[in-house]
């Protein structure tokens, strides 16, 4: 088959412009201070088919070129056309994909090609992009320039430098041919080797299993009964096949089995003298409290065991939520890693019960500082590039899937340079009962059901993701662990599966994420106690994959769905309608065996019980000793005006609007509170609020809390602050505090003591303290954790240069809102609103944003001191309940969470949203000094605004709770803050706006 090249470039002039090129020009200016006068772009297609050049050229305007706005070229390089490109540029760079990397434009082009040339069934299309740079600085190196825009892990780049350009020599990229894969017959691995050799086998094979686990596997194959059964079925009796060893490594990975949370921990507190053993922090501090709460309420339908936690929302609908992290892949390829993160968690929702519909996303990112000027370790991207890539991946994944992003946060700290955290969450909805009477949150598989693989195909991409994420990042991290999502293939699959669910065709469903088919079918096989898979039936992206690769590949956009024999025809017909590939690859059995075949050959024969429960419990050591930190001491002379403007510009406080506005937050026509609110729609929203049933004002609140820097003092306080922040944000929009559910997503540095991690005991003690606080606060708030996840190896490198993230808990919350017509937003609603502080300020400045700012600038010595504590969560809940009711009744329309930057920042943000001034007095708001009351981050505080007419009712409704009158919103556009007679701040609101909006606007201008 011949390869035909088609190139397309935007027309210029008469109002037409090359926007793609111009965006890159502005990005170079913003990120690298490299100024080019012009950048032009060319999109290229390499079409491998039996269709002739003439035929393709004739139909190019029907498919590749939009004749109104573009000029197309067939089998000639656009750059060589002197009418279109009259002058030689300084540099030309062409970027294409490496072989085997997902090429979504190529896939779409192929689909369109088949519309026009249906006979071209074997065709393949690969795409690329070419940029021509004009007016570059003379010292700008072409290879360096290429390095700023392409990722060598997944892409190829060809460069014509100024000399080549002057000579008219342009890059001519070729079709990325995949190297042939060689199918290797499953091998038998000899485990009768020394302990050292077992460890080496685990290490070199990327199995990520420790010695005890390797020995447990060794022991399994020494068992007489096992050997007899294996002999009878015709598989190596006394040694695992590579398929089995890989399958066990995936299933037993930290990523899948959460071995640290399940471990037995010997915990010592050197300060209190405590010396105890904790048998599984997950069971003790997360699962048991939720199960206790489940006895008291009737709305906790499904917790922990499914892909997401499910709660009853009303009589007709249930809702569910799940959050995941995709940290390691996002470090290697920010765009692809983050995109697979968001579309992956969407599949968790689709795989809940008998299939829920994803209706809202949340995204929380932790990055290094975007303006970082220090050194970067090898193989790591600059934080601004990570931010751009992750943002783009999540944007494309969410927007193209038609799921609104309703809530999120971006947090910055130097230590996230080593590993960015990319949390992606999704809320789903499903009818409580299907037409056939089954409750949708309960899976109903039976032995004999056919198991389909639905959606994408299996490829070499995505091998070893689960085990890889269970290791620290190194320079040699494998590129096969990186993938790019394909949202449209997944969207088609979601449409199809929801129709299949409503037709009653699904008995069981789960997603294919970490561990691929070995995990998805393996987990579902627990229901019927057995399955038989034929790997030869699995559709492949390319021939030649070996059996173990097919079993563990994490290729994206796949669901595993069980269907009764009699429903197969209907299921197949739906798949055909939606143009979704659905292939039966397995059958549920009740043999007790995870039985894998390749055609007739048995390649794995593992008892379900051993596969799922065979992993030995880790025994870990934990020792707490408070970190010794220099205390935060306030500067003697300070101008609070100047401090406020600097604080508003801090990356952790500044507006993220230019980024967030690029997410579709309103598709589905349900989003009541947008991420940005107020007169100019640019004030911060506290929580997402959606009304997903059209025409009905019944709502769902979505919020989050994250406070990683408190871990510098105490990870327990960090956890309590995260939970309180999530609840506080939800209260700000009027959540029903008696129907809220939470998700705990822990991201930790490796807490297992070893040569690589000498401080493992301390890091584990941080985990213990965080979980103890999680239990204490959640029990007091009657806030069940219904789902969660942990990612426990967030370190880069080892030894001297090792970078460990601060222990980070993201707490996500979803809850009920009785009527979205009565809610509140943070913007001041005009002059004359009475402003109250709900809650009390204490002298809690330890690890606060002001402490970090002044330490970084050298104005303060340290960040140590009193970190915010939640001393009485029971009465706090009562206050939240009372406040939420004043919002639900329409008394209060203005409320804003008080967190980073304290009251000063909270009120400033309310002024920004309302484009309205305020006079406030912080005297009497708490026991601390001016700094504590102005900048302190004490928990449990919300600033509200109430109209003069509603004030008396508000005060009465809040009787018995701590509220303090702060002041009033004003006609003048000035924020004035005093402490009694001391004037602290006097600033025009427009100046607040300017400071708050500048820092993260990395757009390089609008156009």
């Amino acid at each position: 088959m011949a390869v035909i090249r088609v190139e397309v470039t935007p027309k210029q002039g008469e109002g037409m412009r090359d926007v793609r090129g111009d965006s890159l020009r502005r990005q170079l200016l913003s990120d690298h201070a490299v100024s080019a006068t012009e950048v032009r772009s060319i999109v290229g297609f390499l079409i491998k088919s039996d269709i002739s050049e003439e035929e393709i050229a004739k139909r190019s305007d029907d498919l590749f070129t939009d004749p109104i706005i573009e000029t197309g070229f067939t089998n000639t390089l656009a750059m060589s056309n002197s009418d279109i490109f009259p002058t030689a540029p300084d540099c030309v760079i062409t970027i294409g994909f490496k072989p085997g990397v997902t090429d979504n434009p190529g896939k779409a082009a192929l689909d369109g090609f088949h519309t026009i040339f249906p006979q071209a069934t074997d065709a393949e299309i690969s795409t690329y992009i070419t940029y021509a740079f004009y007016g570059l600085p003379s010292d700008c190196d072409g290879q360096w320039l290429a390095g700023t825009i392409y990722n060598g892990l997944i892409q190829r780049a060809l460069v014509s430098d100024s000399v080549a350009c002057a000579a008219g020599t342009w890059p001519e990229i070729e079709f990325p041919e995949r190297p042939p894969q060689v199918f290797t017959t499953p091998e038998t691995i000899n485990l009768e080797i020394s302990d050292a050799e077992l460890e080496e086998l685990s290490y070199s094979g990327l199995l990520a299993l420790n010695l005890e686990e390797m020995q447990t596997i060794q022991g399994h194959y020494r068992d007489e009964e096992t050997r007899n059964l294996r002999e009878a079925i015709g598989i190596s009796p006394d040694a695992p096949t590579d398929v089995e060893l890989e399958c066990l490594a995936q299933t037993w990975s930290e990523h899948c089995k959460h071995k640290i949370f399940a471990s037995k921990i010997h915990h010592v507190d050197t300060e209190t003298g405590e010396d105890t053993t904790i048998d599984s922090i997950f069971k003790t501090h997360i699962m048991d409290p939720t199960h206790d709460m489940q006895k008291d309420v009737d709305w906790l339908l499904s917790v922990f065991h499914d892909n997401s936690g499910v709660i009853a929302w009303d009589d007709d609908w249930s809702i569910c939520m799940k959050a995941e992290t995709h940290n390691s892949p996002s470090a290697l390829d920010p765009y692809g890693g983050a995109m697979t993160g968001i579309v992956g968690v969407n599949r968790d929702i689709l795989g809940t019960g008998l299939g829920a519909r994803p209706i809202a996303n949340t995204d929380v990112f932790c990055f290094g500082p975007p303006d970082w000027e220090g050194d970067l370790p090898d193989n790591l991207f600059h934080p601004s590039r990570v931010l751009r890539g992750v943002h783009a991946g999540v944007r494309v994944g969410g927007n193209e899937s038609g799921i609104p992003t309703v809530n999120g946060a971006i947090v910055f700290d130097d230590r996230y340079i080593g590993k960015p955290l990319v949390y992606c969450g999704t809320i789903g909805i499903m009818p409580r009962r299907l037409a056939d009477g089954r409750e949708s949150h309960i899976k109903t598989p039976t032995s004999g059901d056919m198991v389909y693989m639905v959606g994408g195909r299996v490829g070499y991409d995505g091998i070893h993701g689960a085990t890889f994420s269970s290791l620290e990042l190194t320079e040699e991290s494998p590129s096969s662990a990186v993938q790019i999502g394909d949202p449209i293939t997944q969207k088609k699959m979601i449409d199809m599966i929801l129709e299949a669910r409503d037709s009653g065709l699904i008995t069981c469903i789960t997603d294919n994420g970490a561990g691929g088919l070995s995990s998805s079918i393996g987990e579902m096989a627990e229901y019927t106690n057995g399955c038989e898979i034929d790997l030869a039936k699995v559709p492949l992206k390319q021939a030649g994959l070996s059996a173990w690769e097919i079993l563990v590949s994490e290729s994206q956009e796949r669901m595993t769905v069980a269907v009764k024999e009699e429903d197969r025809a209907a299921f197949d017909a739906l798949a055909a309608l939606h143009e979704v590939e659905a292939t039966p690859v397995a059958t549920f059995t009740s043999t007790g065996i995870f039985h894998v075949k390749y055609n007739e050959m048995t390649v794995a024969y593992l008892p379900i019980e051993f596969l799922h429960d065979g992993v030995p419990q880790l025994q870990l050591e934990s020792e707490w000793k408070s970190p010794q930190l220099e205390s935060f001491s306030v500067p003697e002379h300070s101008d609070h005006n100047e401090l406020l403007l600097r604080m508003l510009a801090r990356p952790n406080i500044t507006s993220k609007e230019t980024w967030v506005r690029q997410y579709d937050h309103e598709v589905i026509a349900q989003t009541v509170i947008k991420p940005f609110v107020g007169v100019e729609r640019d004030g911060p929203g506290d929580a997402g609020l959606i009304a997903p049933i059209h025409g009905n004002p019944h709502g769902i609140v979505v919020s989050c809390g994250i406070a990683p820097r408190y871990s510098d003092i105490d990870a327990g306080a960090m956890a309590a602050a995260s939970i309180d922040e999530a609840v506080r944000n939800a209260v700000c929009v009027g959540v029903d505090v008696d129907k809220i559910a939470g998700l705990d997503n822990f991201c930790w540095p490796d807490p297992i003591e070893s040569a690589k991690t000498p401080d493992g005991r301390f890091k584990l003690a941080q985990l213990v303290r965080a979980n103890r606080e999680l239990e204490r606060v959640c029990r007091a708030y009657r806030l069940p954790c219904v789902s969660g996840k942990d990612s426990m190896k967030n370190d880069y490198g080892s030894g001297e240069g090792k970078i460990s993230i601060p222990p980070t808990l993201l707490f996500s919350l979803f809850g009920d809102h009785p009527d979205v017509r009565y809610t509140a937003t943070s913007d001041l609603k005009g002059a004359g609103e009475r402003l109250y502080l709900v809650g009390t300020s204490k002298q809690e400045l330890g690890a606060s944003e002001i402490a970090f700012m002044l330490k970084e600038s050298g104005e303060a010595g340290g960040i140590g001191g009193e970190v915010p504590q939640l001393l009485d969560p029971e009465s706090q809940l009562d206050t939240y309940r009372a406040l939420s009711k004043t919002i639900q009744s329409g008394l209060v329309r203005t409320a804003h969470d008080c967190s980073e930057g304290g009251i000063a920042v909270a009120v400033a943000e309310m002024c920004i949203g309302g484009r309205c001034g305020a006079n406030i007095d912080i005297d009497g708001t708490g026991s601390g000094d001016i700094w504590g009351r102005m900048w302190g981050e004490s928990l449990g505080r919300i600033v509200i605004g109430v109209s003069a007419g509603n004030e008396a009712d508000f005060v009465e409704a809040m009787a018995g709770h701590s509220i303090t009158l702060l002041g009033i919103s004003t006609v003048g556009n000035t924020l004035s803050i005093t402490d009694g007679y001391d004037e602290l701040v006097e600033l025009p609101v427009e100046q607040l706006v300017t400071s708050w909006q500048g820092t993260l606007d990395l757009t390089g201008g609008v156009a």
Partner: protein
Amino acid sequence: MVDTPKVAVLFGFGINCDHETKAVFDLVGGQATRVHVNHFINGNHSLDEFHILAVPGGFSFGDHLGSGRLLGNRMRFALRDQLHAFVAAGKPIIGICNGFQVLVKTGLLPGPAAGQDPLPDFVQRASLTLNDSGRYEDRWVTLEFDSNSPCIWTKGITRIDCPVRHGEGKFVLPDNTDFDMLAANNQLTVRYVDPATENGEGITDELLPFPLSPNGSMRNIAGVCDSTGLVFGLMPHPEAVYAKWLHPDHTRDTAPGPESSGVLGEWEGEGLQIFRNAVDYAKANL
């Protein structure tokens, strides 16, 4: 005369506003069904079973090769006769956002020039291209409608607020005389306007700055109709403001809505009237 007009709301291949588009037609007295595009292509359903066709927003085929292009091609090649017959029968079609892009790429919009055979000839005459900002954005805009437009969808509507959510919404025509012809026939149905202008006086040909015009669209065009007024497309999302509680000003008690009480009582949003117009038109004329 039809009591309850049947509305086909297309879905599949990445269309993603199908649920809310169905909902708004149902709210105003239509009977809407989400129908997969392939049902019409395979012959399981025929367009003539329906009175109104809606092509909702979304990311059909990921907008690769240009927004709306690939879905537009499927319709142009496989549904040509059905679409021609639909317009010939006097039935309304709306395309919103990605749906507008699809209708432009199929040639249904702006369609043949006034004075010629007005039925679809499937010739692409305009395009929607990347926003000047280079960014996909979700933001609220103010729209004003040409009160003399033949468009049956926009009768009696002067101004509404609603969100845009697109990366390729800049409407372009190859040359100015094309604009003048469309303008003369009042087919430049809806434009982005500055909300500070007086109601009814916002429309201007002068390019508005970002973000008043979110995309740099020529003559600030947000949507156009064909010369029959039956086929209408626009980039913004009127279905996303079917209720006042979806308007960003609703906690400020200043969210605009219809003067008389609507289907949601005092909570009906401004966007619903567009869909009611088509349902009422179908009731009166089909």
